[in-house]
């Protein structure tokens, strides 16, 4: 078990790929914002790679272990310590009953860190997933962010704990962290020439876009688009603004709609439908970078990508989470 001392800015239970199959009921998929770090963290402690771990956003987290186990921490470097002593990231580390884990520092590159525990976090799956949907207040630990005094149970480890300690990723496997995140993106269903001008799409693909402070697990907002972005004077039967269209279903995680003049990447806890144009879709292999983008600090760039390339990149990424990439 793990007792939360300081939950930090936002710490929640998330798994991967989240709660699939309920978009038609208005329920977003949720799941880890950086699925790559969560999956590596699980791999290192011998869990199925989609097992539930803790997603710590922004740092300032502290918790006490109430039993011996093995953990691994992957994601942004929050300078993790056990009882004040630094511990390595991207490596399986044994901990003892009474040890205090601290993730005390706001990451210099990246925003979220993932704590995986051998056996995973034992919360009841809801509709097939242990992931928390913050705005729906369901899933995870009581459907909410963790609070001081919360006690989390662990599942049964898949392997003997003494075989896990020291497992780490092979050189060159760890993802690169940055302040400007390059997102490969397929043009969406509402682009040029009908909804957006060519110059408007060029604006998205050729500039850096600062992440707005209002970004969270539902949506990452970037700076407003210029006037020449829209190809229409209004939204016709969809509404008065050229970003309006008749309500339609949004694609799962990674789609960008434009709400008024603001482009918004709809992600883990994002809405499942709405009445705004969808102009591009970040490929699955790059979703993790959105989750590591720090609001009010980092920037995104978008790189044109085809559906075929997106499928290839997804296959390549899935192949990363195997024992072939683990060493001792």
């Amino acid at each position, binding site marked *: 078990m793990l007792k939360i001392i300081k939950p930090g*800015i*936002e710490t929640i239970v998330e798994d991967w790929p989240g709660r699939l199959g309920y978009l038609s009921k208005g329920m977003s998929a949720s799941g880890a914002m950086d699925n790559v770090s969560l999956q590596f963290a699980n791999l290192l402690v011998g869990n199925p790679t989609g097992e539930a771990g803790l997603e710590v*956003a*922004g740092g*300032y987290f502290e918790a006490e272990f109430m039993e011996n186990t093995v953990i691994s921490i992957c994601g942004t470097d929050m300078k993790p310590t056990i009882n004040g002593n630094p511990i390595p990231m991207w490596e399986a580390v044994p901990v003892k009953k009474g040890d205090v884990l601290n993730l005390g520092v*706001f990451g210099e590159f990246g925003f979220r860190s993932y704590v995986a525990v051998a056996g995973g976090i034992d919360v009841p799956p809801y509709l097939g997933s242990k992931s928390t949907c913050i705005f729906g207040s369901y899933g995870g630990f009581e459907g909410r962010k963790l609070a001081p005094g919360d006690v989390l149970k662990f599942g049964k480890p898949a392997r003997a704990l003494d075989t896990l300690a020291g497992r780490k990723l092979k050189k060159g496997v760890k993802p690169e962290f940055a302040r400007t995140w390059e997102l490969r993106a397929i043009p969406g269903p509402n682009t040029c020439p009908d909804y957006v001008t060519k110059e408007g799409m060029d604006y998205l693909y050729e500039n850096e876009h600062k992440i707005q*402070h*209002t*970004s*969270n*697990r539902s949506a990452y907002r970037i700076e407003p688009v210029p006037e020449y972005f829209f190809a229409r004077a209004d939204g016709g039967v969809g509404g008065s603004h050229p970003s309006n269209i008749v309500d339609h279903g949004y694609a799962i995680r990674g789609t960008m709609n434009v709400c008024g003049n603001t482009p918004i990447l709809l992600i883990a806890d994002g809405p499942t439908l709405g009445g705004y144009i969808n102009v591009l879709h970040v490929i699955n292999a790059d979703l993790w970078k959105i989750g590591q983008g*720090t*609001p*009010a*600090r980092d920037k995104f760039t978008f790189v044109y990508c085809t559906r075929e390339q997106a499928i290839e990149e997804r296959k390549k990424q899935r192949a990363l989470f195997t024992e072939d990439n683990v060493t001792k």
Partner: protein
Amino acid sequence: MDHKVTATMPGLVARVVVNVGEKVAEGQEVAVINCMKTEISVKADKPGAVKEILVKEWDEMQVGDPMVVLEI
């Protein structure tokens, strides 16, 4: 001696909740930052008296930016 209370999170200043001359205890909230549509409390890491307020509403903060000067 002066001590600066700094931003713990990037975001916009929602409000400063202390006034110049006011005594603050360690751990007392001095300002609030808005980020992720959430209000993040910025607390004094030392006790002291507020000497100067360096920020105003809507100012953009980065981690480590000074917000309030305390006389400690």
